[in-house]
């Protein structure tokens, strides 16, 4: 095999290197393509005429204006949204994607722009309506504050039945802080604990506030939110922009634009508009 000499080896090596380093070198970001799912309202969705709408569409527009880049937001199915990023089809993902350790093995994230706190939904006028510090944020990372909160809530929740979706961060929270105090019941889906809550088989359900907004809207005013807004710790770091690991410069641009919006209150305004509550990430 004389013909396959060092030149052949070099060509093969060049090819291998080319395939192994698919991400671009540092480049001058003038134009960005951002992928969203387009089927997860109020984060992102479509209008009946096929246009993209939602919180993240407005947020992308605002962030791009601040970063002084031209942006195009495209819809991409949730399945394959990460391979599309690493493959280079687009440069960023803004699709209500929670920052998790597992995803961080594959892609990078900007700092979180929203954190969806978890809270209790309870029957209006029931024993658990108006728990202490309703609507106040409590971070699970703040050990002292959380211990004080648990001490306040435990006597009130004693003997009550609380539901959550199985294998969720909410179920983990209940098992970590209220095991033995309240009876914890887990359900395959969030819709099922809503039904049991309305049927009176549950005294409270713990879920993400962004989800509970729809539950409340569907309950004809029979359910209300109660108790503190739990964030941080095992509830995760919030929702951020998904980016390729190689694009550190782009991450820096997103981080500073998001920080600006958090600081001047425009993030609060935008989340109030789409979620009816302030779910902007803590600074």
């Amino acid at each position, binding site marked *: 095999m004389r013909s396959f000499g060092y030149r052949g080896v070099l060509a093969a090596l*060049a*090819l291998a290197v*080319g*395939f192994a380093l*698919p991400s*671009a070198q540092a*480049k001058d970001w003038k134009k960005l393509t951002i992928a969203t*799912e*387009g*089927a*997860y*309202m109020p984060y992102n*969705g*479509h*209008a*009946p*005429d*096929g246009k993209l*709408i939602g919180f993240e569409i407005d947020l992308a527009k605002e962030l791009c204006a601040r970063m002084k880049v031209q942006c195009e937001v*495209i*819809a*991409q*199915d949730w*399945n*394959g949204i990460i*391979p*599309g990023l690493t*493959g*280079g*089809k687009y440069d960023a993902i803004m699709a209500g994607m929670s920052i998790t350790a597992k995803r961080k093995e594959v892609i990078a994230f900007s700092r979180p722009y929203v954190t969806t706190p978890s809270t209790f939904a309870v029957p209006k006028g029931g024993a658990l309506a108006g728990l202490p510090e309703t609507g106040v944020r409590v971070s699970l990372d703040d050990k002292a504050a959380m211990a004080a909160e648990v001490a306040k809530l435990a006597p009130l929740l004693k003997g009550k039945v609380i539901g959550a979706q199985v294998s969720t961060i909410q179920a983990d929270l209940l098992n970590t802080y209220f095991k033995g105090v309240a009876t914890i019941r887990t359900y395959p889906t969030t819709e099922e604990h809503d039904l049991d809550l309305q049927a009176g088989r549950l005294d409270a359900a713990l879920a993400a506030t962004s989800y509970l907004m*729809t539950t409340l809207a569907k309950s004809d005013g029979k359910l209300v939110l109660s108790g503190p807004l739990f964030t941080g710790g095992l509830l995760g770091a919030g929702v951020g922009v998904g980016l390729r690991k190689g694009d550190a410069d782009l991450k820096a641009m997103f981080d500073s634009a998001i920080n600006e919006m958090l600081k001047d209150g425009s993030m609060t305004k935008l989340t109030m508009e789409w979620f009816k509550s302030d779910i902007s990430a803590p600074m």
Partner: protein
Amino acid sequence: MGAYFTLIGFGPNGWGGQLAFATLMTLSVSASAFVASLVFGLLAAWAKIAGGRLAAVLADAYTTVFRGIPELLVVYLFYFGGSQVMTSIGRLLGHDGFLGLNGFMVGTFAVGIVSGAYQAEVIRGGYDAVPRGEIEAARAVGMGRLMMLRRVIGPRTLRFALPAIGNVWQQVLKESALISVAGLVEIMRQVHIGAGSTRLPFDFYVTGLFLYLLLTTVSGFLFRGAEVWTLRGERAA
């Protein structure tokens, strides 16, 4: 009920236009994939029946591999893998930036190549069902290879294979839903978009169900008609 028809209707706040467009997309991508599957299937069946040793081995490998792996994997491989390879080759040639593959083309090719593997077995089975005596008779009256193919083997194979070819078509129609990962807005992707955008999953998924049923039922009738046509020379049992 009235609210449902407003939702999926063609009014200013209805999703009718989007849904109709998605249905056409499903139909056109399925039809293209089906034609592709016939081409792959005929080639592989021919290689198995009349090809040389190498052609037969290659055709066997093709039908074994593509019937043995999930279609979703094939779509992923061609769509994302294909783009990555194209981009890398582009970079070697000095083009900086992403070279994407068209979702429609990739989807058609991926579903076509997988269904072609089934199609090959269907066609080979149809050919095997043709009584050898008919072929011998054709040879005995002095027909050439092409005339024999046109007058005896072709029509007779079609008559035996057509019901199963109809099955492959239905399979292609349903598997076209997998192409939604390539960003193509066909029925599956559109009802998912509608469900997620309005938070009315039941209404949209039921609509999707009816749209697929509509397509499979209508095409079922067409294939039934075609089967009757292939049987026109047969004695009634």
